[in-house]
């Protein structure tokens, strides 16, 4: 697919697929088109040419919206929002129930399960605005999990959160992939927490796919995803100049 704002092409001939049960990371330097690709995938933008298919249909035509879970980049939460963790997570269940149907016992169980999978069950009655940044992010991941999606899309979910929250974050994603066979598409600069669990890494550069393959192949070129966490961002910024890795 291709996408352009007016005459300016942001994505040019990008072709990416995510299979069921796959854990894929989408990375790229600033301005590489990651966010635009994400918004096209979510159906918030329409491609200029080509097509996006979600479970075989255009995103706008997807009837079972619960199949797609989305965690935005650190939602702009009002500091005085009077909402508990449980209320926030339950809001994610609406993708499954629709906005008119009342919650049943199974819905409440799913909400509880989602909170449990991100280790927030003990904080369920706390105001979400009183939690740390990492805990808030986990609450929003649980919100996306509450609909039990087949594909979970996360936009920079670990930016600036503490190590403990990153570990919990990793556990919740691997739980989703292993237990529910859901696919995960993670857009991030920081893959250290999940480096060992990824099936594929897609690197975007100037609106095109620069690399698409297993992390080991990327690591073989000298780019470290896990041990030296800073390597990937530095390498990505270096992509402004032609690199050696091409797949």
């Amino acid at each position, binding site marked *: 697919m291709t996408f352009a704002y007016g005459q300016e092409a942001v994505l040019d001939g990008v072709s990416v697929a995510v299979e069921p049960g796959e854990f894929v990371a989408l990375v790229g330097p600033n301005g590489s088109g990651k966010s635009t690709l994400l918004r096209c995938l*979510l*159906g*918030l933008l329409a491609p200029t040419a080509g097509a996006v298919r979600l479970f075989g249909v255009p995103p706008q035509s*997807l009837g079972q*919206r*619960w199949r*797609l879970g*989305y*965690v*935005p980049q650190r*939602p702009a*939460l*009002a*500091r*005085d*929002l*009077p*909402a*508990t963790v*449980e*209320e*926030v997570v339950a*809001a*994610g269940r*609406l*993708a499954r129930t629709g*906005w*008119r149907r009342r919650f049943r016992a199974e819905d409440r169980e799913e909400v509880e399960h989602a909170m449990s999978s991100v280790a927030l069950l003990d904080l369920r*009655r*706390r*105001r979400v*605005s*009183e939690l740390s940044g990492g805990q808030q992010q986990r609450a*929003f991941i649980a*919100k*996306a999990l509450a*609909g039990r999606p087949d594909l979970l899309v996360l936009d920079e979910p670990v930016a600036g959160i503490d190590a403990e929250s990153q570990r919990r974050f990793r556990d919740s994603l691997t739980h989703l992939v292993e237990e529910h066979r859901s696919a995960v598409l993670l857009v991030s600069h920081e893959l250290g927490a999940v480096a060992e669990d990824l099936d594929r890494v897609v690197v975007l550069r100037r609106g095109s796919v620069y690399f698409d393959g297993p992390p080991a192949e990327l690591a073989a070129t000298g780019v470290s995803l896990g041990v030296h966490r800073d390597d990937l961002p530095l390498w990505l910024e270096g992509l402004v100049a032609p690199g050696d890795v091409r797949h």
Partner: protein
Amino acid sequence: MLPLPYPFDREYMQLALVSGIAMGTAAPLVGAFLVQRRLSLMGDGIGHLAFAGVAGGLLLEVWPVATALLVAVAGALAIERLRGRGRVSGDLALALFFYAGIAAGVVLAGASDRFDATVLSYLFGSILTVSAADTWTVLALGVAVLATMALIGRALFAVVLDEESARVAGLPVDALNGALAVVVAVTIVAAMRVVGILLVAALMVLPVATAQVLGRSFRTTVGLAMAVGVGSSVVGLGAARQWGLPPGGTIVLVAAGAFGVVSLTAERLLRRAGRAPALGSVPGTSR
């Protein structure tokens, strides 16, 4: 007439009580969503449009409540459309309609030659002069607001949390925002006889500000806000009769006083209850 004690022992006070309770319940319920969406002044903007509608009704010699409802609903949808399309910011969209509404109201009221006590009763409320028919109208509009919010409240909460995620989840975000705008317009028209167009937004915002200090969950906050709204209406009406005060202003002053008392004592009360204070901030400001 019901055998109620003083100050609600007269029929006009009982009619006022019914209207006050209806709006004390409905206005904070709607306001809870506006406050969280940083649209606290939307009530004011639409209120000024309702004033233009009232003045238009007086000019055309038709029922002013009907014309106010028509203009307020149309204006609310237009504000939401402008805001939703991102052509102008939320506060600028409100300002545009705010000024246009009040200017149109002044011109139309002047042209109708009714710039007198009739207009003032809409601007500042005249709850003690409402008729039984007026009370039924307020009650019917209040029930319509409560029923609508019961239906869309959960989905609106998801939109409040994150509009983009709600859209991705397949919620009809534009329709929900439009419905909220219409409900705000209906609430304002219903409440304009209670506290007046100039003060109606206060009944939407002040009880929510008070409730946010104490409530932990959204559900509790909304419940507390409605309780504060009803309490302010009842106490305000009683005080107005006892001391011969204007009831609309008195109701709003009681609501403002409740916020002052709660925010000053919340820390001590909540610590005694074994809880850290919720936040203690005025909505829209940071801690």
